[in-house]
């Protein structure tokens, strides 16, 4: 266990050493939030609310979902792909730890760094530019952080799956890109799930993606109330368990047919 905590620490320190790279990231996220702010203002026109969300809640939704993305987003799929391609993975596999566990811990170290040095200052900056409402209820904040942990786990699990696919595809930059696009759309980052037409919404309940962004953002903007919150978090937990199955399966299959292409 202490070994894994050490991995989190090392990755955190590594990110800290390169922290200047992150200031421009805040700028980029602010630019994106700005684009959607203007777009949504035009979409609302004079309307009071759409699908139960006011324009103020919508702006908050956009800002919070981008800043939450900074926490759960990581590139471990790309790292795994690179390590498979240059053959490093063979060495990693004979080391006395679980390779996927190590990757998850590194991602967590990165996430903790980003929430402290990116999301928090970023959200403060964005709140100065755009109208954003912060909840004053402690339970909202508690459930928000709880669901944020689950979004990290679900997103990391999907990244692990994508990374493992490199064992079968050899070069899977395309898949990694496609996955990113799918997550941006179906996780609720670009559009709250409740805005989709009914049939699409019911289809999306069978997909794990809304556990990544929609749930924490709706909790934060108080678009969810009462039992909706607990149900949503339960749904996230269920997805965490379900996703363990394909990871296990693909990983044991991958170990059997590993081809080291170089190194």
């Amino acid at each position, binding site marked *: 266990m202490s070994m894994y905590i050490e991995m989190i620490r090392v990755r955190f320190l590594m990110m800290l050493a390169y922290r200047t790279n992150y200031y421009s990231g805040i700028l980029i996220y602010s630019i994106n939030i700005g684009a959607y702010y203007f777009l949504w203002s035009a979409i609302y026109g004079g309307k009071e609310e759409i699908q139960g969300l006011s324009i103020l809640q919508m702006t908050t939704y956009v800002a919070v979902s981008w800043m939450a993305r900074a926490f759960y987003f990581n590139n471990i799929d790309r790292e795994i792909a690179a390590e498979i391609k240059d053959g490093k993975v063979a060495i990693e596999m004979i080391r006395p730890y679980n390779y996927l566990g190590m990757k998850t811990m590194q991602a967590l170290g990165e996430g903790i760094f980003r929430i402290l040095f990116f999301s928090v200052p970023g959200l403060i900056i964005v709140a100065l530019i755009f109208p954003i409402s912060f909840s004053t209820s402690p339970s909202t904040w508690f459930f928000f952080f709880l669901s944020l942990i689950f979004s990290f786990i679900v997103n990391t699990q999907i990244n692990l799956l994508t990374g493992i696919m490199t064992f079968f595809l050899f070069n899977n930059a395309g898949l990694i890109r496609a996955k990113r696009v799918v997550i941006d759309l179906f996780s609720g980052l670009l*559009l709250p799930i409740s805005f989709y037409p009914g049939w699409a919404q019911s289809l999306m309940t069978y997909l794990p993606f809304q556990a990544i962004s929609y749930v924490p953002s709706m909790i934060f903007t108080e678009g969810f109330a009462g039992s909706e919150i607990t149900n949503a978090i339960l749904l996230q937990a269920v997805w965490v368990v379900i996703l363990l199955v394909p990871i296990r399966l693909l990983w044991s299959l991958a170990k059997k047919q590993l081809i080291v292409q170089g190194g």
Partner: protein
Amino acid sequence: MFYVSMFFQYASQYLKTRFTYRVDTAVEILSDLLNQAVNLIFILVVFGHTTLLSGWNRDEIIFIYGFFLIPYALFSAFFNIWDFNERYIVKGEMDRVLTRPVHSLFQIIMERMELESLFGVITGLAVMAYAGMNLSITFTWYDVLIFIVMVIGGMFIYAGIFLSIATIGFWSDSRTDIMPTMYNISNYGRYPVNIYNKIIQFVLTWILPFAFVGVYPASYFLGRNEWYGYAFLTPVMGVIFFAMAVLLWNTGVKKYRGAGN
């Protein structure tokens, strides 16, 4: 003539490398399509809740997006220079390029081309055709010529802006994040400029003229004559920005001293 045959040689080499990883190439094209679909889905879903976006209706917005895809596809196929600084300056590849008897910019464009991005032209045409039919837009023969000129103008604007940023590498090889920042700003050009406030409108028109890649030229075909003046400026802006970039490039190459060792 020499440059044309060079182009075909590079293109055939390129296709060979792409066919080595066939599945991956297919997935990559698919992920491009997916990306374009996402933006379309966004527009479609949004118009489930509203009828007008600052005076533009659903099909007009879709048409603008379809138009935008075409110059953008040409740009991404031939001006894939977002990692110019790391790839050519920091790693010293620029030295290799400069020893050859072909213009350095041409070589880099050829080395870095991504022909599969050209699929975006087809998507763009299909999207425009769909929206155009809903709006019952009529095309005359000279509209085709105007269309080509506008598309090339739009591509030159994109190319001009991103090339100019790439030339920073000649003066400073330190890592900057201007390139990704600019990519995100360019997304503002996909929607009508009148949804933004006055300052952003001004920037998108005269300083980083991304509005000339989407809404301005498209408004000509949509018959929105209040924007015609801007529409016809598209090729002019394209030539100005591209010429500026080539000038910066040539100055930069003269200034270039290599990255050490």
